[in-house]
């Protein structure tokens, strides 16, 4: 059984099984608000995962039953969704996430040189995080910035065209 929850204060939390994950009460409220947009609570599942990820940087195991409980759905359906979508991270990521477009228009404008320049600079490849926990590097589908390829994102910002020689300066802005 889960511990009692106290929702009266901002510090209230829902503790859950697993790794001692604690769902922030503000996140809980955000998830409940999202739930009201839809006919059924399951629909708020993806947004719930994103809410947790915004706070923690990724979705720890313990978040799965916590979200399931708030939405009143089975943990398996939350987990199934969490592992399907590429922008839901089920492992810790760096403070900044770099998404490099590897689709056709960027391929034709030499995304490979950009990817290699980033990889060389950071000493990591796709799917890896720098040892200092600063950057995670991931490939992404067409970012809808094809006219300015090669394109990439760092956190919420989209850049393009980015030349290999731009990489060092660009990364500096993300300490």
């Amino acid at each position, binding site marked *: 059984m889960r511990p009692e929850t106290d929702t009266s204060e901002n510090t209230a939390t829902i503790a859950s099984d697993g790794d001692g994950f604690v769902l922030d009460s503000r996140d809980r409220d955000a998830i409940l608000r999202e739930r009201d*947009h*839809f*006919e*059924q609570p*399951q*629909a*708020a*599942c*993806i*947004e719930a*995962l*994103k809410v947790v990820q915004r706070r923690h940087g990724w979705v720890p195991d313990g978040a799965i039953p916590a979200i399931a409980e708030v939405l009143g759905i089975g943990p398996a*359906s939350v987990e*199934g*969704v969490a592992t*399907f*979508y*590429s*922008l*839901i991270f089920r492992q810790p990521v760096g403070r900044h996430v770099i*998404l490099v477009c*590897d*689709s*056709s*228009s960027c*391929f*034709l*404008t030499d995304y490979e040189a950009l990817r290699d320049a980033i990889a060389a600079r950071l000493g990591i490849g796709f799917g890896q995080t720098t040892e200092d926990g600063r950057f995670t590097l991931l490939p*992404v*589908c*067409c*970012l*809808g*910035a*094809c*006219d*300015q*390829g090669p*394109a990439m*994102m760092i956190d*919420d*910002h*989209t*850049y*393009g065209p*980015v030349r290999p020689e*731009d990489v060092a*300066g*660009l990364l500096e*802005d993300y300490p």
Partner: protein
Amino acid sequence: MTSQLRYRCQLHQSARERREESHPLTWRMRDDGVRVDLAEYVSKDGYAAVSQVLNGQSPEEVIDTMTEANVRGRGGAGFSAGVKWCLTLKGENIPRGYLVCNADEMEPGTFKDRQLMEQLPHLLIEGMILGGYANNARFGYIFLRGEYIGAARAIEQALAEAREAGWLGADIAGSGFDFDIALHTGAGRYICGEETALINSLEGRRANPRDKPPFPGQSGAWGKPTVVNNVETLCCVPSVLRHGADWYQSLSGDLSNDGGTKLYGVSGRVNRPGLWELPMGTSGRELLDLAGGIRDGRALKAWLPGGASTGFLLPEHLELALDFDTIAKAGSRLGTGLLTVVTDQQSMVALMRNLETFFARESCGWCTPCRDGLPWTVKLLAALERGEGEQGDIEMLDKLANDLGPGKTFCAHAPGAAMPLASALKYFRHEFEQGVTRPTGPAHAEPIPVGEV
């Protein structure tokens, strides 16, 4: 330094060039690219179509006008919006359903919906209100890909403005019609753009496509009639209803049977990549000229007319009208209408390896030809690219392209992967043949030992 590298949409027509009577999608956009807010939108005839239609026309009349104008789906398939709306279940005993805007824009080479949403979100909202009215929908969703942070912000601001001003909510414009819209942002995966996968994703499930029938218009989100339309399609609606089907048809004049204008674009190694709103049926040649031709003194080798899932065309096809029927007749698809240009020094084998790697990664894994066939295709292409292809590899690719074709899988993802492959093999076979340097090996045993070679 960093801010100079920020991506900015490139609409290469100035506000002076973009006229209300000829550029229904973009004439309200500003030269500085700042979002057109509610006050400016209203001052530019914004929401006039909503006031006019909700108080003067029946949903059936709206659908008739849309059908007559022949607004064909801009998400890539080119299905008439009016005909689709006509097929939505409506009536006394039918619950009111949903209008869903497909804003998942992830088709490689496509960057048009981003522009519309970041700079002119009220046009989309107005189109959705009208679409909601025509389809008797009770609520609308904008399904936006998660990476479009700027578009999300623009849409949220516009939704709040529209709600505040009474364009959304109860009794819109005193008509008695209730409608509101929520923004749903996605979490990655190209397959979410397929309309039935999108509905699953909206319901908070894995984005696997659904079997058809039932079509979404019969039973979609939560079992209710659901209409899914692309951003650009919905952005066409206000002007069609404001100025009529004949006016809309006349925009494309003799160029095409498809009415209206299209947000066309060009990417790849050209001098001036970007977007233009042009009459439907503009030729590829004219578009490429606007894009300043091929960069660095190179020549055009091939082009994709509308994204990764369309078939390659050659320089000789540039004279064709960029409309759905003409491009289909040439063996490709108009798709999203944004050209991807390949120059003479770029390898088709390498490009195909890149394209199929994308399709393989983005397969939802439901059907065997797609789940197993695509990684196999990538393997063969990668070997050919390294010059390590075996006798029989090209024939195997022919077979795979055929097995992935229309009607053999649950959704159009696999046929989308097959079309560029089949056309590349047809037009540039010699490039693939150059990669064959070895005798037939174990990979060609029958049946294919999937996962073993």
